[in-house]
């Protein structure tokens, strides 16, 4: 009888001890998908004489979006690429790209992005991720035909907004010679 009691005590202690170790092992969650997925864009121009695609640089750029006061990019200089958030609650996001924001001379382009949004449950520890897929992208009319930087066309390279910097859009600007 004493043997049984001792064995029971050992078994319970061992079970609780090892169980707590096991629980602590499995509590380590992998939340590496954390962080807002973004739409990554690179800026190009095409030399009309050689048809060569060349990386372009915008001197100064400010980006805002419709229906928010937030400034997404604030007078960044020497811009060659962009990482832009897409809206969670609507399937269209409209960006306004201003080239001389400080002088208020109203040189800007508009970029229309249509996308699908889907919340994806990861785990109780990590919560959700928002999966956003671009279905179309187009540019609006430039405010001035004489402006230095003029968005000419947009090409989709990859539809899924991501956290690893994979290029989604190519923004082609008019060649400036």
């Amino acid at each position, binding site marked *: 009888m004493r043997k049984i009691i001792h064995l029971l005590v050992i078994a319970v202690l061992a079970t609780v001890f090892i169980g707590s170790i096991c629980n602590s092992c499995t509590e380590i969650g992998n939340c590496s998908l954390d962080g807002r997925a973004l739409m990554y864009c690179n800026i190009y121009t095409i030399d009309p004489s050689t048809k060569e695609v060349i990386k372009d640089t915008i001197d100064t750029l400010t980006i805002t979006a419709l229906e928010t006061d937030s400034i997404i990019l604030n007078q960044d200089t020497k811009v060659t690429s962009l990482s832009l958030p897409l809206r969670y609650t609507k399937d269209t996001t409209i960006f306004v790209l201003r080239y001389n924001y400080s002088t208020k001379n109203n040189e800007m382009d508009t970029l229309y992005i249509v996308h699908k949004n889907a919340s994806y*449950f990861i785990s109780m520890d990590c919560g959700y991720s928002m999966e956003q897929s671009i279905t179309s992208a187009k540019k609006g009319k430039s405010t001035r035909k004489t402006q230095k930087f003029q968005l000419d066309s947009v090409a989709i390279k990859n539809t899924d907004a991501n956290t690893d910097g994979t290029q989604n859009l190519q923004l082609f600007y008019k060649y400036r010679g």
Partner: protein
Amino acid sequence: MEHKIYSFSISIAVSLVLLFCIAPPLAAQESYTKPVPKREQPRKVPFVNPDTIPFYKGMYVGVDLYGLGSHILGSDFISGEVRAIANLKNKFFPTIELGMGKTNTWGDDTGIHYKVSPTPYIRIGIDYNTMHKKKDQDNFVYVGLRYGFTSFKYDVTQASFYDPIWKEYIYNTEQKDDIWGGSIPYNHTGMKASMHWFELVFGVKTKIYKNFCMGWSLRMKYKISASIGNYGDPWYVPGYGKYQAHSVGLTYSLIYKLPF
């Protein structure tokens, strides 16, 4: 990964220490009766001739108590399990394990509700008794392998809140748009999933009274494949635990040796 391996190694080490440091004194206590002069003691035969052990040595049935016990101690998961074990030459133990698992959990401060209704799972496999050559056939230290499968449905829903000042719903507090504001509701019920996995088993089992045995086992579980819902990963998988590439499990069983 290194942390898990380290933790697992610690648990194995602790298990072995418990097994080899605490069990021998007990065994000594049990066998102690009256000193017998050495010359009168029968010659000890520590090993048994395998040819004398019959191929079929009996059948065991058992229940796992760890699934219930861990829930009482605070785990989000609850499970119950029965198993049938055949003893072949006291060496191999083909095993089938049938269980039910469920969870109904609210996330702390997140408003996430995850639910799996009671769902069956099955494991089949075999254990190898490393003490089969010993004369003492009441104690078992074994290693084994299991294949597990379950098919289940899971619900993930998110509590929403009404903001009386701004007069709007916050549908998902865990996923607000920090630029435009607002969130979208998340309510997906009845998502279907299934999973295959295998387990490496290390365990001990000992006779406690007549036909009754008791034992525990430590299990490293590895996902083989899974089919999951379109709107989210499962969080709890019956019989496997948390949905991840690998996990650690524990069983604590009471076992009865059938009299045939």
